[in-house]
């Protein structure tokens, strides 16, 4: 059961080939047996899993099941789960048990899906390697000496190692797409505002977006159907009605115009990775798509722009962690100032502190115009590049990352080298566009991803391009040979 797609599991439950309890036990058993190697989960509550699975089985027997009723899904530990610890990978929230569900979790619960567990992540979603977690690094199932990517590294590793059939993630600068690429799975970051942010611990509020991570585009579409939609409790959530993202799967790519930004194929892109991307583009061309060279002339400014805007918003959002209402509090504070400063010293890790300090600096008196306002202006130029491109093409394609997964420890002491990992993914967040990564080959046994960026609210088209690609290729069906049950 563990090697099946979500679509196959949906059919299996419907046809009574197995029950949700059997399915859930299968994944619980794999987590218990194998996750000491990957460290992809922070919390798993077996009793709650089996109770939810039992309720799902009753609902299926009663004949009123929804599509995902009984499907176990792992959730990034950034989504608040009522009564279940939500740590955000931080010591600050190690003891935090939310009194409410994130809207996304509530959607899955209403559908009757099973919360399989909460996955490991970079602290407060700040990182590209999952090495910034209070709960320890996550290993890449393809080679446990490699990083899985981040910040949704636990979700990506859990799906790749077949410890969960699908997972949720969040993407502020590439945190769904980059780990999906490194772990050989499929992930989509929807348009900003497509999925509710309520109950998703905030990092950078104008960039954060939740999305699904699974083996295939079809599975991502099944999950996105349950996630997308307007939420009156999130004032930045889009009022545009959500679509049925499965309805358009299989449509022809004839006449589809795919833009290839020349900036995404230049210096810094690993040669073997570039070859995989070129081969993938040939496959799309063979299906009738037209490849068009385009330009995103402000691409080189995405990293500096992002590393002002994201830390500035983070410094504001993370000011709520003060040791007063919830989360960590230092022992024996002598006064209120000591309570704040020591709680935050102890509760936050090095990278989170760095970003809070950079953000505080960028927003401080005398520097606001030079940094924050300047970055917001350049952000508009970056967005305008995409608006211009989408007047010529339907989809933009390129590599998700400059190369395959790197070794654990290789960049953990060098923030600037780590920031470069997201060079191709940041722009979609700055512009608010949907972006997706689909497995596109192996380089020395390590997966690489093809990134597809779509126009605003064009998730259905992106998913269809991914789906058509996956009907003609089998990269998404490869499983790491080291993961028990895997066949490369």
């Amino acid at each position, binding site marked *: 059961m563990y090697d099946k797609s979500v679509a196959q599991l949906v059919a299996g439950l419907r046809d009574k080939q197995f029950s949700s309890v059997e399915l859930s036990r299968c994944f619980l058993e794999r987590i218990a047996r194998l996750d000491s190697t990957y460290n992809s989960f922070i919390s798993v509550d077996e009793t709650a899993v089996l109770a939810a699975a039992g309720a799902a089985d009753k609902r299926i027997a009663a004949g009123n099941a929804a599509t995902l009723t009984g499907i176990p899904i792992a959730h990034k530990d950034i989504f608040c789960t009522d009564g279940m610890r939500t740590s955000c990978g931080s010591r600050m929230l190690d003891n935090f048990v939310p009194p409410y569900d994130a809207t996304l979790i509530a959607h899955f619960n209403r559908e009757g899906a099973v919360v399989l567990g909460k996955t490991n992540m970079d602290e407060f979603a700040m990182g590209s390697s999952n090495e910034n977690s209070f709960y320890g690094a996550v290993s890449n199932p393809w080679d446990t000496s490699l990083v899985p990517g981040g910040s949704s590294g636990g979700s990506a590793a859990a799906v790749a190692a077949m410890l969960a059939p699908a997972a949720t993630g969040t993407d502020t600068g590439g945190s769904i797409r980059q780990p999906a690429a490194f772990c050989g799975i499929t992930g989509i970051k929807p348009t900003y505002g497509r999925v509710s942010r309520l109950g998703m611990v905030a990092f950078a509020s104008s960039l954060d977006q939740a999305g699904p991570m699974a083996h295939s585009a079809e599975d991502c579409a099944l999950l996105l159907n349950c996630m997308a939609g307007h939420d009156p409790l999130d004032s930045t959530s889009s009022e545009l009605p959500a679509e049925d993202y499965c309805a358009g799967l299989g449509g022809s790519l004839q006449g589809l115009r795919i833009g290839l930004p020349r900036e995404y194929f230049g210096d810094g892109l690993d040669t073997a990775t570039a070859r995989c991307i070129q081969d993938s583009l040939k496959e799309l061309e063979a299906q009738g798509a037209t490849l068009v060279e385009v330009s995103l002339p402000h691409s080189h400014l995405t990293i500096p722009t992002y590393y002002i805007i994201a830390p500035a918003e983070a410094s504001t959002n993370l000011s709520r962690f003060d040791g007063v209402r919830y989360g960590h509090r230092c022992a024996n504070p002598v006064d209120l100032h000591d309570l704040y400063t020591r709680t935050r*010293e102890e509760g936050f890790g090095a990278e989170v502190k*760095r970003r809070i300090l950079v953000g505080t600096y960028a927003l401080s008196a*005398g520097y606001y115009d030079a940094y924050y306002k300047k*970055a917001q202006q*350049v952000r*508009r130029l970056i967005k305008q590049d995409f608006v211009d491109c989408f007047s010529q093409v339907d989809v933009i394609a390129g590599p998700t990352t400059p190369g395959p997964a790197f070794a654990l420890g290789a960049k953990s002491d060098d923030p600037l080298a780590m920031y470069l990992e997201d060079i191709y993914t940041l722009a979609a967040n700055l512009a608010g566009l949907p972006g997706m990564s689909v497995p596109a080959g192996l380089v020395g046994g390590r997966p690489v991803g093809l990134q597809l960026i779509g126009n605003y609210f064009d998730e259905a088209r992106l998913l269809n391009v991914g789906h058509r690609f996956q009907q003609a290729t089998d990269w998404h069906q490869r499983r790491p040979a080291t993961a028990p049950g895997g066949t490369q």
Partner: protein
Amino acid sequence: MITLRPPLPRRQPFPVANTMAIEQNEIEKIAELARIRIAPDQIGQVTARITEILGMVDQLQAVDTTDVEPMANPLDAIQRLRADEVTEENRREAFQAIAPAVENGLYLVPRVVE
């Protein structure tokens, strides 16, 4: 084309960020603003890292952004308002159950007023 707007009057002289020369005491000031204690033996390393990051973001200073309107929201959306009606129930007990220290419905902190 880019949406143009008349440039906003600047409220203060545009500072030239000389971040390569950021001083340790400036980091200490920022840490104080952010209410994060930095141990004395770490302040040097933190300053070095922040200096690197600020050096990298300084590339932006060279970009001509004359008449470009700052973008706060990728969809240029404005804050949506709702009717001023009570929609949530009071859940004080549930929220205070996860607090580090409470008494009689109040959050406890060290004495502020002597």
